[in-house]
């Protein structure tokens, strides 16, 4: 029964294969495999092939089927690869068309009116692995990448200095001394004070528990959170998850929406970090430079400078890279040992 079914399958497979691949298939099989001379005397050369090229007498149909099935799998794999390549090419073509269209419109706009307000049309949802739009991402106005970092440059007016970690003077002043704090809220998971008493013996839960942690499917980028803290946390969450493309988008949105927020400096750093992890060295260099220039006494300043150097190094800009590394050590003698170690190893590997 099973055997009969397999025979039928084999016939179907052969038909499928010969229909699908035509003469290439027919032409390949009869060729004896190299080394076949070492095999016992051959009686016939068959169409089926087992991977050994030829068969001794009394070949079992099952053995032939197995070999055929292997061939079909190989071909299936090739088809899958082709489909994938076609899909990728289509996507690239589409992006190319979009970009061309955009540039065409832009050049038309440049003739008379200013470009239709705001940044260019929102980037389509990132597709990660394939080509990123990289340089197509909205670029901060002007600010060409300074090849020699303007170390110690002035902070733009109106942007508060980010309080340096451990520098009590720069930290916001605490208000009134000891005040009575509010009532403790309940556990948000249940809305009730948590009672673990029913959780069972030996630390093993036996109680019927709620639904398992549900998460959305492939999450589209959620809308920008409604307040600076949430927006920052959300963007930072992407960094923590290693979703650097989303982190970049979210930090850019945060920086645009809340330009005066107290975590602006950190956000610049993490924007740079997200770009750095995606190997967008030019963009990351710009972000780290801005983070350092705008917040030279911020907690992230030494790391910004280090990362600026690393970005420049990747761009082949050895001298400014070395200048950045030197500046970390010169300007931040109290930087964390980890940062200093990394600077030194970077200096060595860059040959500063």
């Amino acid at each position: 029964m099973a055997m009969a079914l397999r025979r039928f399958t084999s016939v179907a497979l052969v038909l499928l294969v010969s229909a699908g691949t035509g003469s290439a298939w027919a032409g390949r099989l009869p060729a004896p495999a190299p080394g076949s001379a070492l095999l016992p005397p051959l009686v016939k050369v068959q169409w089926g092939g087992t991977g050994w090229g030829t068969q001794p007498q009394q070949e079992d149909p099952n053995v032939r089927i197995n070999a055929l099935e292997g061939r079909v799998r190989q071909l299936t794999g090739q088809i899958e690869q082709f489909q994938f390549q076609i899909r990728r090419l289509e996507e690239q073509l589409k992006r190319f068309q979009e970009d061309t269209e955009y540039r065409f419109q832009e050049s038309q706009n440049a003739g008379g009116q200013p470009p239709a307000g705001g940044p260019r049309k929102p980037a389509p949802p990132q597709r990660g692995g394939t080509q990123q739009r990289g340089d197509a991402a909205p670029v901060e106005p002007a600010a060409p990448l300074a090849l020699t970092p303007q170390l110690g440059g002035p902070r733009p007016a109106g942007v508060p200095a980010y309080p340096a970690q451990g520098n009590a003077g720069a930290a916001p002043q605490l208000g009134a001394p000891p005040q009575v704090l509010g009532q403790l809220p309940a556990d948000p998971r249940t809305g009730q004070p948590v009672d673990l008493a029913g959780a069972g013996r030996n630390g093993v839960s036996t109680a019927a528990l709620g639904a398992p942690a549900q998460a959305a499917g492939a999450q589209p980028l959620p809308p920008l959170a409604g307040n600076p803290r949430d927006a920052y946390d959300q963007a930072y969450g992407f960094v923590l998850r290693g979703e650097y493309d989303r982190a970049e988008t979210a930090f850019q949105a945060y920086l645009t929406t809340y330009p005066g927020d107290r975590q602006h400096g950190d956000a610049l750093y993490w924007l740079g970090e997200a770009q750095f992890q995606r190997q967008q060295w030019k963009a990351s260099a710009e972000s780290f430079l801005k983070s350092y220039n705008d917040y030279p006494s911020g907690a992230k300043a030494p790391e910004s400078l280090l990362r600026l150097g690393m970005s420049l190094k990747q761009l082949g800009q050895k001298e400014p890279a070395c200048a950045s590394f030197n500046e970390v050590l010169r300007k931040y003698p109290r930087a964390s040992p980890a940062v200093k170690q990394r600077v030194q190893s970077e200096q060595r590997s860059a040959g500063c």
Partner: protein
Amino acid sequence: MSLSTTLNRGFRIALALAGALTLAACANTNQDQAAAGRATPGSSQDFVVNVGDRVFFTVDATDVTPEGRTTLDRQATWLRQYPRYTFTIEGHADERGTREYNIALGARRAASVRDYLISRGIEASRMRTISYGKERPVAVCNDDSCWNQNRRAVTALNNAGS
């Protein structure tokens, strides 16, 4: 009889296994030869030592190799001669694969051997198949000299005592 190096190695393992099973002692070449001499025709020892109870596979492959066919042809002859035996074909994989896939791979190897033996006239009712994946290696080291011994299908006689 011209046997390849691989097959020779296969035999040594088979012998070692036979030694371990029947003598419960550490197998060495002398003991193996002695065991071979002593094997009663038609005994499970005879099958393991003189016929060869296992075939080997190349990496990630499930086709029986030409050497494997020679072994299985001998197995088929022997099994036809001693029809009282039923047997289990155990499929195994080397350790260089993931656990679940190796169970599936071992099953396919066992099925390849089963199909070949059926084509050589052995009744399907006498055999069953099982896969151990990478769970039961015979040789342990971090290179292919061990892995190629572990990529195997073993024909294990069930009612060996009868």
